[in-house]
């Protein structure tokens, strides 16, 4: 080995230690320019082989036994379309984000679907939710996309804007069985632009008021119902707050924060808005928004009835309601399966009712996800045949979306989970009467608006800045960001 590289020997031409250190420093400094590495994302990637346990000829697990799946599949009426079947074998690639259980269901669907459509092979690409958008936006930039892809409501307008999702209207017209009216207008709206439909919704659920019956019974307070106002909820939340540290019982969770549904959930009932309807101007610095948010700041700072950032950390960012630490919670009806499947030591008597109303009325954001055919799809017709079956009433029943976007399967899917009839009725009523997409932020700059507003809101909820100053500050900082939505 040539020692010159390692030692400062006088009279040689090797590298000095100083030079070695310099080179090492330069190489290390160059890293941020060549790679924006994201270890966190790598860490959250599903373990290899997590989906490989199921027998490909007979995919099943405890949640989805094969025989039951086959019986259910065969009992359902699958839709037809006038789009012709491919004459030779084609493969439809489908980008999904799914947990282990759902992956098994997809395997079962693929197998049974192939028996009906022998020339169509479905090939799934499974990506964790946290990585999904980055992966497919990057892939789209490289000019390659799967035939069918999942989209969250908050991504859809971006995917449409950048021509990733293709309009489905011609296919829908060619499919009388599609029954577009089976979806609520709200569910469809997130995936539509300029009168064209780019996605078929999988699920759509309103946010509702969940409560812990045991906490109410212990305090001798009547359970919430549809007559409640937000003011009444805030008063009761104060009364139900007790304890400290890890034994803290909150009156309500979560503390409102400037997220995508702040307007619909907390501001519209008072006539306020975070951003204007077209999402290009900031309107949070208004008397209405102030009137809506002031009691929440009091609940956070004075009575400590809603979890602070530190208290959330104490719960390791678990939902305080599901961790049995909160009397009430405002959350989407999509958490019903999770509440039903809580481990025994965490189970509690729970109930659900309509969201409270405010002086300007009652509102609930109804959001969900969808699938669409991509513009780069190699087999668009075959992709539609798959999508049409997958998100038909039969498909939504087979996949047990809870709650599903198709109203015709709403009752059946929730009843299969043994959800109380009154809860199902309340959710449906909410969807039909006051659930809306109005106020839910969905334009491209939403994340930037949230990231800009959040630090200011952290100060307000921490009691370090007044609400009035905070709202003014948020309005000033977010104005140029929201304005960019007009582009």
């Amino acid at each position, binding site marked *: 080995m040539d020692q010159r590289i390692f030692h*400062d020997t*006088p009279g040689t031409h090797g590298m000095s230690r100083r030079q070695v*250190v310099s080179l090492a*420093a330069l190489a290390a*400094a*160059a890293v941020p320019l060549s790679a924006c590495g994201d270890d966190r994302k790598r860490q959250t990637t599903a373990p290899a082989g997590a989906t490989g346990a199921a027998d490909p000829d007979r995919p099943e697990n405890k949640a989805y036994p094969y025989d039951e799946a086959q019986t259910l599949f065969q009992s359902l009426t699958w839709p037809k379309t006038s789009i012709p079947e491919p004459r030779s074998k084609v493969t439809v690639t489908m980008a999904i984000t799914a947990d282990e259980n759902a992956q098994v269901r997809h395997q079962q669907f693929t197998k049974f679907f192939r028996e009906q459509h022998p020339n169509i092979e479905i090939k799934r690409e499974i990506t964790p939710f946290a990585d999904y958008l980055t992966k497919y*936006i990057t892939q789209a930039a490289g000019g390659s996309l799967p035939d069918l892809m999942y989209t969250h409501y908050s991504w859809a307008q971006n995917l449409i804007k950048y021509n990733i999702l293709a309009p489905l209207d011609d296919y829908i017209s060619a499919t009388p069985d599609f029954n577009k009216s089976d979806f609520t207008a709200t569910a469809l709206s997130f995936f539509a632009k300029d009168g064209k439909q780019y996605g078929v919704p999988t699920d759509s659920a309103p946010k509702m008021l969940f409560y812990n019956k045991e906490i109410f019974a212990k305090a001798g307070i009547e359970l919430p119902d549809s007559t409640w106002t937000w003011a009444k909820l805030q008063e009761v939340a104060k009364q139900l707050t007790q304890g400290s540290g890890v034994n803290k019982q909150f009156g309500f969770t979560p503390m409102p924060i400037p997220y995508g549904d702040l307007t619909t959930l907390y501001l519209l009932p008072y006539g306020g808005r975070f951003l204007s309807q077209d999402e290009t101007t900031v309107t949070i610095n208004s008397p209405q928004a102030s009137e809506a948010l002031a009691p929440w700041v009091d609940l956070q700072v004075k009575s400590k009835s809603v979890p602070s950032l530190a208290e959330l950390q104490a719960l390791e960012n678990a939902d305080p309601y599901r961790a049995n630490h909160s009397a009430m919670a405002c959350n989407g009806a999509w958490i019903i399966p999770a509440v039903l499947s809580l481990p025994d030591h965490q189970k509690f008597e729970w109930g659900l009712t309509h969201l409270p109303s405010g002086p300007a009325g009652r509102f609930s954001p109804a959001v969900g996800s969808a699938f669409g055919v991509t513009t780069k799809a190699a087999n668009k017709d075959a992709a539609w045949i798959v999508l049409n079956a997958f998100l038909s009433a039969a498909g939504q029943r087979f996949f047990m979306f809870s709650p599903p976007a198709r109203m015709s399967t709403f009752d059946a899917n929730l009843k299969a989970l043994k959800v109380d009839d009154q809860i199902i009725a309340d959710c449906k009523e909410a969807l039909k009467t006051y659930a809306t997409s109005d106020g839910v932020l969905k334009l491209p700059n939403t994340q930037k608006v949230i990231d800009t507003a959040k630090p200011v809101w952290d100060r307000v909820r921490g009691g370090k800045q007044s609400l009035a100053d905070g709202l003014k500050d948020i309005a000033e900082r977010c104005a140029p960001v929201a304005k960019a939505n007009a582009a």
Partner: protein
Amino acid sequence: MTAYTLRGRREARRFHLFTTPWMIGFVLFSGGPIVASLVISFTNWELLASPHWVGLQNYRQLWHDPDFWLAVKNTVYFGAGSALFGVAFNFVLALMLNLKVHGQAIFRTIIYLPSVLTGIATALLWINILHPDYGLINYVLGLVGIQGPGWLVDEHWAIPGLIIMSVWSAGNAVIIFLAGLQGVPQSLYEAAEIDGAGWWGRFRHVTVPMMSPIIFFNMIVGFIGSLQAFTLVLFMTDGGPNNATLVLGLYVYRYAFQYFELGYASTIAWALFSLIIAFTAAQFWLARRWVHYEFK
């Protein structure tokens, strides 16, 4: 002479043969992207739309971006704190591990163990250790009558909390220090002892000067690594509370992979690169005053 030339040629051939894979990898996966990122920094590329040349607009925007300057301040605070505290702490650890005591190998293994933990496991552990209510650190402080701070949820204590955590998993630096300590010639200590130097004198006039290149190396590498902090910050605080832990690495990530503004993200990355180069150059300049090389 001929033999030397032949041997020299053979050596040169081997040198090129063995360095070629690395050179190819560097050009394809580092050098290429570095050049590309410089070009992209002069565009407003939104990833899915075609990039448009905007000249210095991104750099002007950067100059007037208050969040960028906040991120610079946080990055330097974390980088300097983590590097200086880390070097001092690891040097002391290495000195202790260099003592000839029973169970020396076990102690060395224990000190090195945190380095093999993955970032997320480390983050989860430290979220609990730094927890204001039931965390180990505040519990210990409570035993001596001190009410511990909110650490990661208090904007004044979030970066100190991250610095403490970063020091914990620096076993690699300890190994380098240990190797250096074992390379200090015993004769120098003996000579110092004959001259009447006590333990402090030997440490100050023999150990520190002889170890100064190693201290310098660890400082440079530690500083550069800390300035690029990203994963743990993203996972533990995501820049909060109140942007108190918004560091440049996280700012690049947000613009690149949350807002998909690759042009501006590249501009921030180049600003980070410039910052690292400036600090590294300053350290090299200062090193002339305190780093002792055995042979010049």
